[in-house]
């Protein structure tokens, strides 16, 4: 048998499958199926997934521009979109977003193999200036403000940091800080630091609660997203039984959706949280180490909340992916708007993120910082 040459990632392969047998492709290429683009990107960045030659994205909607650009910057070429039926409209969309090729139901295995081989062996010399408009460049004033303010804050808060660190260590064993991977500007993943507010090693006992934990624990960053998702569905079906109700599939889906939506909300009185943890969470002191993230440039003081992998993955349309154009930040429009007003739908929240991305300025940032202070002081059990 001939050696398989190229590694092709197939994302969401069951969303718009080829009309021919995939086995034909598998005999030519090394086909790697993925369900999760953001995790794939993260895996590539962290080198836990070795280089792939090309990517075929299956689905009726093309992936968001920021994701396409991110993949291109990681040297993935060609980026191919497989849709149900090629129309003038989606063809133009593919060209505009610099996708290298597209296929549909009428494409044969021969077509796909011929084009993939050619594209891999003859990559187009990409002129990135056309995509420059969707790149984010932090304004100098903003960065300067971030560096100075975070540096001053870190110095001033040093005694408080030591105090919190001491309290954490006294109550429970384990590191003072922990990090989780977050997706910030331009789908860039970075280590998001916090004070540890939970017991370590309690994971096995509390695994079933994991999906409810907004911040995740510092588990393997590559599987964290998938895990939380599969846990969600398990739990959703478990809930059906305990409720003892007969539900139609539609109702079940609705319930599951609500359940998945719940991953965005911090749960109340999580038993994994230490007493010190509870205090620093209520006072938002656990967020202070993010000043370090600001100082080293991962994020800004004001910006859109960086999202965990599994949440970033859910944002699959250009409209909402716009939020990744703006800087990631500790506080932002939705934090200020949210507190005190109770629950806010995911949709509204993403809308706020987009609003910020569309129109942000230094003046607006200062306003938001000022608004954040009273919001922080609010003693709400969140």
């Amino acid at each position, binding site marked *: 048998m001939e050696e398989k040459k190229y590694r092709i990632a197939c994302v969401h392969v069951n969303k718009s499958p080829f009309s021919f047998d995939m086995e034909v492709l598998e005999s030519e290429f090394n086909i790697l199926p993925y369900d999760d683009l953001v995790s794939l990107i993260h895996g590539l960045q962290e080198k836990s997934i070795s280089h792939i030659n090309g990517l075929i994205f299956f689905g009726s909607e093309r992936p968001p521009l920021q994701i396409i650009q991110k993949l291109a910057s990681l040297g993935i070429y060609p980026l191919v979109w497989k849709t149900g039926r090629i129309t003038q409209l989606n*063809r133009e969309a593919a*060209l505009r977003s610099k996708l290298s090729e597209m296929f549909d139901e009428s494409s044969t295995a021969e077509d796909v193999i011929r*084009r993939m081989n*050619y594209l891999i062996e003859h990559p187009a010399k*990409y*002129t990135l200036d056309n995509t420059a408009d969707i790149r984010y460049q932090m304004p100098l004033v903003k960065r300067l403000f971030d560096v100075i303010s975070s540096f001053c804050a870190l110095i001033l808060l040093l005694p408080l940091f030591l105090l919190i660190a001491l309290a954490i260590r006294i109550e429970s064993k384990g590191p003072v800080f922990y990090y989780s991977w977050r997706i910030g500007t331009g789908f860039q993943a970075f280590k998001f630091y916090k004070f540890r507010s939970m017991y370590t090693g309690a994971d096995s006992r509390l695994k079933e609660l994991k999906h409810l934990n907004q911040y995740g624990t510092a588990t393997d960053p590559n599987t964290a997203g998938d895990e939380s998702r599969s846990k969600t569905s398990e739990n959703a079906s478990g809930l059906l039984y305990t409720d003892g109700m007969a539900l139609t599939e539609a109702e079940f889906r609705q319930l599951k959706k609500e359940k998945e939506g719940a991953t965005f909300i911090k749960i109340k009185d999580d038993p994994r949280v230490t007493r010190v943890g509870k205090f620093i969470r209520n006072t938002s002191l656990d967020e202070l180490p993010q000043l370090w993230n600001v100082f080293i440039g991962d994020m800004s003081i004001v910006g859109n909340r960086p999202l965990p992998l599994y949440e970033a993955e859910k944002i699959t349309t250009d409209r909402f992916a716009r939020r990744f154009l703006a800087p990631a930040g500790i506080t932002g429009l939705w934090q200020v708007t949210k507190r005190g007003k109770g629950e806010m739908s995911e949709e509204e929240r993403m809308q706020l993120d987009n609003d910020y991305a569309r129109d942000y300025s230094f003046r607006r940032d200062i306003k938001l910082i000022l608004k954040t202070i009273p919001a922080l002081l609010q003693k709400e059990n969140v």
Partner: protein
Amino acid sequence: MEKTLLAVDDEKSILMILDFVFGKKYKVVQKNNGQEAVQWLQQGNMPDVIVADMNMPEMNGFEFILQIRSSGLYRDVPLIMLSGNENTADKIKCLNAGADDYLIKPFNPEELEARINNIFRRMR
């Protein structure tokens, strides 16, 4: 909007003629072989019609047809072959591979223009 004609030929004189004949109505993009033409397309360019030679270095006309017709992005672009090769077997091979028409050199530019216009008329 001005239409774009992609002319692919390793013979400079043919490109000059095509540019001279179609230059007023079209934006004529000239490429010296199939490879160059495909590279240009891969940069995200979408021509309205392609006129290509058969015998070219790097990538010949037949390979070029196969690449264009395999591509979901470019498979609907009208493609007319222009060749000194009178062999009907080759002509049939190209038409079967997806070329819309096949003209033999020496050709009358007016005939080429008429054939292009007919393709556009059918596409409407």
